[in-house]
């Protein structure tokens, strides 16, 4: 079932939680609402669920105006961050609840519960109470409970937020597989960009009650619409500089850090003027070299090397600005360079993004 959000606005006292937010969620997709705390993502999810009502705007569930429907008639499944399992009911009764309140016969309920217990791999836990389960088990029961009545939309509010890292990863994979099997339209809220990038078909990046960008994980990661999206979706290094006549000088002023701006879709006027710019570079798009070799680079000193992990993280301080940048490189490259802390090297950039009023994408 598709979800259409049209110009939804929501205020809490004087705080504007959502500002004319519009969104299309096509049927069958797994969509992430991603953003920092307070950006409105949970509020939006709850409005879609019917747990809150919008001050302005509409929500259409499968082209039907949802305002006429209250929570229980929307046929949605909601998974809460802290599970919200019914503490005085067994796992079996929890999962079967939605069918019980609909007056389904006992046999049907038992069968459906058995089916779901198999799906979440907790067949022996039917008689247990929530207090006797671990966090990961509780969340799986919560999901089974939400799915019992075959909802057309599954909404999850930071479903793995209360779990530790390893369990989070396991459940993430499990949710992805579940979605592939069941294909129910799903929207989940998270502030963890890694989770969103890994799980979602589409990511909706939100900030301060507005949508910053909607796109596939590749789109939002590699082609961020603005600095906020870029900064939120991963580490970024910033370089301040100036653009004059189509040439950009970034970082501590040195002739060696001059870039010729190529590409981009800006108008001639914008490109030709003098203006200060900020260049955004991801750590893995920076490289370290011992010699300048003609390409734009900045002199720096290696401050810290963290070689534990899949890739090597190097903190280098730009001389002249005395500001650290983070460089991410493969173990092979690191071994090639044989870097040591305190060495003076050159930091090179493979790709720099510059955002202006009309978003332009400069590739160097």
């Amino acid at each position, binding site marked *: 079932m598709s979800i259409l959000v049209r110009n939804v606005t929501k205020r809490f006292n004087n705080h504007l939680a959502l500002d004319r937010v519009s969104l299309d969620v096509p049927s069958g997709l797994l969509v992430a609402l991603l953003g920092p705390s307070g950006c409105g993502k949970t509020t939006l999810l709850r409005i879609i669920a019917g*747990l809150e009502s919008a001050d302005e705007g509409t929500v259409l569930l499968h082209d039907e105006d949802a305002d006429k429907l209250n929570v229980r008639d929307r046929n949605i499944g*909601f998974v*809460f961050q802290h599970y919200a*399992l019914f503490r005085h009911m067994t796992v079996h009764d929890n999962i079967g609840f*939605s069918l019980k*309140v609909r007056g389904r016969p006992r046999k049907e309920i038992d069968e459906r519960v058995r089916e779901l217990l198999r799906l979440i791999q907790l067949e022996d836990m039917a008689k247990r109470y929530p*207090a006797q389960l*671990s966090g990961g088990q509780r969340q799986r029961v919560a999901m089974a409970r939400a799915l019992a009545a075959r909802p057309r939309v599954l909404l999850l509010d930071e479903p793995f937020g209360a779990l530790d890292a390893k369990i989070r990863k396991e459940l993430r994979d499990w949710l992805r597989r579940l979605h592939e099997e069941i294909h129910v339209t799903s929207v989940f809220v998270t502030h963890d960009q890694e989770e969103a990038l890994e799980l979602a078909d589409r990511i909706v990046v939100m900030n301060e009650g507005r949508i910053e960008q909607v796109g596939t994980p590749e789109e939002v990661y590699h082609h961020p619409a603005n600095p906020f999206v870029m900064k939120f979706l991963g580490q970024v290094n910033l370089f301040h500089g100036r653009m004059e006549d189509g040439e950009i000088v970034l970082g501590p002023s040195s002739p060696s850090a001059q870039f010729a701006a190529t590409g981009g879709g800006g108008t001639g006027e914008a490109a030709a003027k003098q203006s200060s710019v900020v260049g955004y570079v991801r750590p893995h798009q920076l490289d370290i070299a011992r010699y300048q070799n003609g390409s734009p680079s900045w002199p720096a000193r290696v401050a810290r090397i963290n070689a534990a992990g899949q890739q090597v993280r190097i903190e280098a301080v730009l001389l002249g600005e005395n500001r650290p940048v983070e460089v991410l490189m493969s173990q092979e490259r690191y071994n090639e360079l044989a870097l040591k802390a305190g060495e003076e090297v050159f930091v090179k950039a493979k790709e720099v993004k510059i955002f202006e009023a009309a978003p332009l994408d400069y590739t160097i």
Partner: protein
Amino acid sequence: MTATTITPAHKIVRHDPWYVRVPLIAFAVLFLGIMVIGPLVNVFTQGFALGVGVVASAMQHPDAVHALKLTLIASVCAVVGNLTFGLAAAWSIARFRFPGKVVLNSLIDLPFSVSPVIAGLIFVLIFGAYGFVGPLVFGETRIDIIFALPGIMLATTFVTVPFIARELIPVMEALGPEEEEAARTLGASAWQMFWRVTLPNIKWGLLYGVLLCNARAIGEFGAVSVVSGKLAGRTDTLPIHIEKLYQGFGAVQTASAFAIAALLCGLALLTLLIKTFLEWKSKQQLCEVAKTEMPMAA
């Protein structure tokens, strides 16, 4: 291979020295003994001083029986009324945002702070023969409120207003709305949600509140005195009946007074026992709540 071991710090036990513990405990026990236990034991002693026969006839006296009936009716009315109010108020305060919420919350405590005599007087001033609406009500319905059962019911209900609400509000606030929201998203109607999810979760707090309300209602004296007019055999509740017996002359009267008082004390002790059990159960449940909120490894 060298490994630095970290030894766990030894358990910190609050162990005040004996010259602090002993006097404190002794004082508490002595205070309780003199102020509470002594007098209670005395009630039973004096009540049975002239033998079981006197006790039996005191309890079977028609005035006593009528007083007991009146007391029970008033207390049932108070419990039912305040149960409805308490649930509604707790729900509104714990779940809704509305202007004046703080005011409502404070007003609930008002009957606590008002002297019971004043509480009784309030109703006389409103419903009495010279009161605001008294003549009107009598004119329309020919029902007496003051110096009659309705007045007693009103006064008793008034003084016990806070008990149930005060028990339920913190319980409902601690539980949070998630389970109820979950029930709604799963398709439960409002009644189904209340019956299947809310009620089981608040039952211990609810029972505790009902018990306290009941205990207070049975023992209420000041407000009911003012409102009932103390007409023997007609508008006497048990506490008023006891007072009358005690005011009377003679050892039998006195013993009877204590005998009925012993009945009330017996009820109070029973209430205390049930209350302690429910308190323990309720604490247990809140511990469960705390446990379920804690993240655990799978």
